[in-house]
C-alpha cells in the first residue's frame, strides 16, 4: 500500500472559511441587531411620549417639586425645592445610610467572622446560626420585620419610652439631644484635626524608628491620646476659661409630642438595622474565609519567632488575610449600597424612593429619571471598585 501524499498547491479555500471574515460577519450581524433594537425602541418611545404628551429632556429638574421629604440633610421645602433639589436630598440620604451602614456592618461582620473561628464551641455555634439564619432570609422580609414588627410596636409619642440622658423612643423614631455649636466650636475641630495629623506623623516616625533601631513605640496608646484626649482636653480648658463650644438641646416632652432635640426616623433605624445585620452575615463569611486562607505554618512560624498570640494575629495573620478579604469585602459594601434602595419598601426617603418613586410618578419622565438614577448607582459602583482596587494593589503581594 502506498499512501503518497502529493504536495501540490494548498487546497483552494473559500474566503468564507477564513476565521477573520467570519468574525467580521458575526460582529456585523450583532451590531445590526443591536442598532435595529435601539432604533425600534427609540422610535416607539418618541411616538409613545408624543401621544402621552410628556415633554422630554432634563428641564423638569428645575421645576418646583411641591412635595415634602421627611428627612433632608440640606434645606428643602415643598414650596421652594425643585426636582433637582429632591434628587440631591435623596442621593444624600442614600449615601448617609450607606456610609453609616458600612461602618457598623464592618465591625459586626468582623466580630462574627472571628467568632465563627473561636475555639469556644458556644461562641462558634451561635455565630454560625446567626450567619445561616440571616443569610437565608430575603432582606426585604427582614426590613419589613424590623420596621413593622419591631419598631411598629413602639408606644405613641405621649407614652414615649424614656431611656435617660435625653434619649426618648416612640413610634416617631428615636429622639436625642441635639448638639448646638457655638462660634468657638472651631477650636475643638482644630484640636481634632491636629490630633489626627499628629497621630499620622507619630506613626510614620515610630515605624521608621522600628525599622532602623528595632525599638517599638506604643502606637495605640498615643493614637488614643491624640485623637480623643486632645479634643477633650481642649474642651475642658475652654470650659474652665468660661467658653462653652458645644451645648445640647434636649428633647422636651409635651402633651402630644416631643419638641426640640434631634429626631432619627424609625424608617432610618429599621433600614440601618436590616442592612447592617444582613450584610454582616456575608462579611462574616468573607472574613472567615480570609483568615482560613492564611496557612497554619504562618502562625506557627510567628510563634516560633516568639511573637505573642496577639502580635501573631495583628502582624502576621491579619495583613495576609486582608489580601483575600478585600475584594469580596468591596462587593459586599457595594451590595449594601445597592440594597439600601430597598428603603422604598418601608418609606425611607432614599434616592429610589424620592426620585424613582415620587418624582417619576409626578413628572412621568421615565427615561430621564431611570437614566439618572441608574447612572448614580453605576458611578458609585465604579468609584468604589476603583478605590478598593487601589487599596488592593497596596496590600497585594509584592513580588520581584
Amino acid at each position, binding site marked *: 500500500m502506498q499512501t503518497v501524499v502529493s504536495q501540490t498547491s494548498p487546497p483552494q479555500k*473559500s474566503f*468564507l*472559511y477564513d476565521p477573520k471574515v467570519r*468574525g467580521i460577519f*458575526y*460582529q456585523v450581524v*450583532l*451590531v445590526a441587531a*443591536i442598532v435595529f433594537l435601539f432604533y*425600534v*425602541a427609540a422610535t*416607539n*418611545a418618541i*411616538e*409613545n*411620549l408624543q*401621544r402621552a404628551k410628556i415633554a422630554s429632556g432634563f428641564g423638569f429638574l428645575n421645576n418646583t417639586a411641591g412635595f415634602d421629604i421627611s428627612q433632608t440633610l440640606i434645606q428643602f421645602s415643598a414650596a421652594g425645592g425643585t426636582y433637582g433639589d429632591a434628587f440631591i436630598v435623596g442621593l444624600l440620604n442614600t449615601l448617609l445610610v450607606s456610609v453609616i451602614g458600612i461602618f457598623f456592618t464592618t465591625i459586626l461582620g468582623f466580630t462574627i467572622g472571628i467568632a465563627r473561628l*473561636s*475555639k*469556644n*464551641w*458556644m*461562641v462558634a455555634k*451561635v455565630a454560625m446560626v446567626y450567619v*445561616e*439564619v440571616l*443569610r*437565608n*432570609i*430575603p*432582606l*426585604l*422580609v*427582614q426590613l*419589613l*420585620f424590623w420596621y*413593622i*414588627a419591631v419598631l*411598629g*410596636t413602639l408606644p405613641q409619642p405621649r407614652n414615649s419610652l424614656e431611656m435617660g440622658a435625653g434619649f426618648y423612643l416612640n413610634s416617631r423614631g428615636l429622639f436625642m439631644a441635639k448638639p448646638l455649636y457655638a462660634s468657638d466650636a472651631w477650636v475643638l475641630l482644630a484640636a481634632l484635626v491636629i490630633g489626627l495629623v499628629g497621630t499620622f506623623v507619630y506613626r510614620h516616625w515610630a515605624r521608621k524608628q522600628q525599622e532602623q533601631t528595632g525599638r517599638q513605640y506604643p502606637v495605640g496608646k498615643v493614637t488614643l491620646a491624640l485623637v480623643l484626649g486632645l479634643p477633650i482636653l481642649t474642651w475642658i480648658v475652654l470650659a474652665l476659661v468660661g467658653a462653652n463650644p458645644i451645648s445640647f438641646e434636649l428633647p422636651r416632652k409635651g402633651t402630644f409630642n416631643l419638641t426640640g432635640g434631634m429626631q432619627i426616623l424609625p424608617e432610618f433605624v429599621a433600614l440601618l438595622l436590616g442592612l447592617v445585620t444582613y450584610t454582616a452575615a456575608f462579611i462574616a463569611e468573607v472574613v472567615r474565609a480570609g483568615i482560613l486562607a492564611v496557612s497554619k505554618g504562618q502562625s506557627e512560624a510567628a510563634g516560633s519567632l516568639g511573637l505573642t498570640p496577639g502580635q501573631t494575629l495583628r502582624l502576621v495573620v491579619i495583613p495576609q488575610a486582608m489580601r483575600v478579604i478585600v475584594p469580596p469585602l468591596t462587593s459586599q459594601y457595594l451590595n449594601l449600597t*445597592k*440594597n439600601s*434602595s*430597598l428603603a*422604598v*419598601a418601608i418609606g425611607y426617603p432614599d434616592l*429610589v424612593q424620592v426620585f*424613582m418613586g415620587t418624582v*417619576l410618578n409626578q413628572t412621568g419622565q*421615565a*427615561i430621564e429619571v*431611570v437614566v439618572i*438614577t*441608574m447612572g448614580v*448607582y*453605576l458611578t458609585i*459602583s*465604579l468609584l468604589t471598585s476603583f478605590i478598593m482596587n487601589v487599596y488592593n494593589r497596596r496590600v497585594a503581594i509584592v513580588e520581584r
Partner: protein
Amino acid sequence: MSTAVDMPRFVRAKQVDALPPPNLARGPIAWVRENLFSGPFNTILTLVVFYLLYVTVPPLVKFLFIDAVWSGSDRAACRADSGGSEAGACWAFIFDKINYFIYGSYTISERWRVNIFFALLAIGVAWLLWLKAPRRDLGAVYFFWIFPVLSYILLTGGNADLGARFWLGFAIFAALVIALFAFAAAILKTSMRPALIMGGGIVAVIGITLALVDIDFGLAHVPTSLWGGILVTLLVATVGIVVSLPFGIVLALGRRSKLPIVRMASVIFIEFVRGVPLITVLIMANTMLPLFLPGDITVDRLLRPLIGTALFASAYMAEVVRGGLQAMPKGQYEGAMSLGLNYPQMMTLIILPQALRIVIPGIVNTFIGLFKDTSLVAIVGIFDLVKTIEASRIDPAWAAPTIGITGYAFAALFYFVFCFGMSRYSLGVERRLAAGQKR
C-alpha cells in the same frame, strides 16, 4: 571512654509515685472544660453567650410556640380584649389564609393546575440537581423547553387562539429559515442534510411550542392579575433560572470571545446590570418597557418584572459561568481544536460540560440570591408571597397586634427552608467535586 565514671552516681532505689491520672481527658465534662471554660477569657465569653441566649431564646420559643394561638377563625382569637391571647404568634391567621398565601386569588376551582405546576417544577429540579439521575440531558430538555411550555398552558389556560393569519405568517417564516440554512450550506459548499436538519429542527421546536400554546385544551383562562402568593414567587424564580442559565452562558462566552465587538457588548451589559440595584431594573421594566413597544402592544403586568429579574439574573449567572470557563485548563481548548472541532462543537462537547460541572455550587448560590430577590417584585405591585402577607396583614377581619410579626415569621420560615436547603445542596456538590480532585 570515661563517661560512665564521670557521671554522678545516682541510681534511684525507690519507685516514684505515679502521677495522678489526668483529670478527665474524655467525656462530656472534659469536653465542656476544654471547649467552654478553657481560660478566664473563654469563661467570660461563654457566660456572655449564655446570657444572650437566655435573653433571646426563651421569649422567642414562648412567642412562637408556647403562647401561640393555633386555632381560630378570626381576630377574636388573637386579641386580648375579645378573650383571646395576644402574647404569642397568631398561627391561626396563617392557617386561615394559607390558600391565599399559596395561590393568591387564583380561581379556586382551577387550583389543581397550580398543584400540577408545583409537581412538574419539583420533577424538573430533582432531575437536574440529582447528579446520579438517569438521562440528565433529557432532564435539561424537559426543564428548559417542555416544562415552561406545559406550565404556561397549565397556568394561563393556553388556547392562545393565534388564528389562521398568524399560522400563514409562521409558514412563511419557517420556509425562510430553512431556505437560509440551505443557502448557507450551498455557498459554504457543505452537505445539505445537516443544514436542513438544523433549520427544520429550529422550525419544529418553535412550531410545536406555538401549536401547543394554540390548542384549546378546554382549560379555563385565568388572567395573571389573579395569580399570587408562593405560586408567583416560585414562578419568578423559575423563569429567572430557565432564562438566566442559557442567556448567562451566551453572555459568558461573549465576554471570553476574541471578537472585540461581541466582547464589548457582553461586558457592557454584564457590568451595567451588576452595577445597579435590582429594584431600579424592576422599575425600569415596569415604566420603560411599555414605552419601547408599539403603542398597541400591552405587556402583561406580571411579565414586566419577569423580564427584569431574568435579565438581572443573567448578568450574575454570566460571571459564574465565566469563572468556570476560566478555570478550564488551556489544554482542553487546544485538545479540542487539534481534533478539528469547530467552536460550537468545542464548547458544547468539551468545554461547557466540564466548566458547568465545576460551577454548580456557584450556580446554586446565584439561584439562592435570585430566589431571595424575587421578594422585590412586591415593591412593583406584584402579588408574590411578601405582598400577599402585606395585603392580609391589614385585613380588618384579622386586625390584631401580633398579625404583622406572625406573617413575616411565616415568610421568613418559607424562604429560609428553601434557601437553606439549596445552600446545603451546593455544599454537598462542592464536597463531591472536591473529592474527585483529591489525590
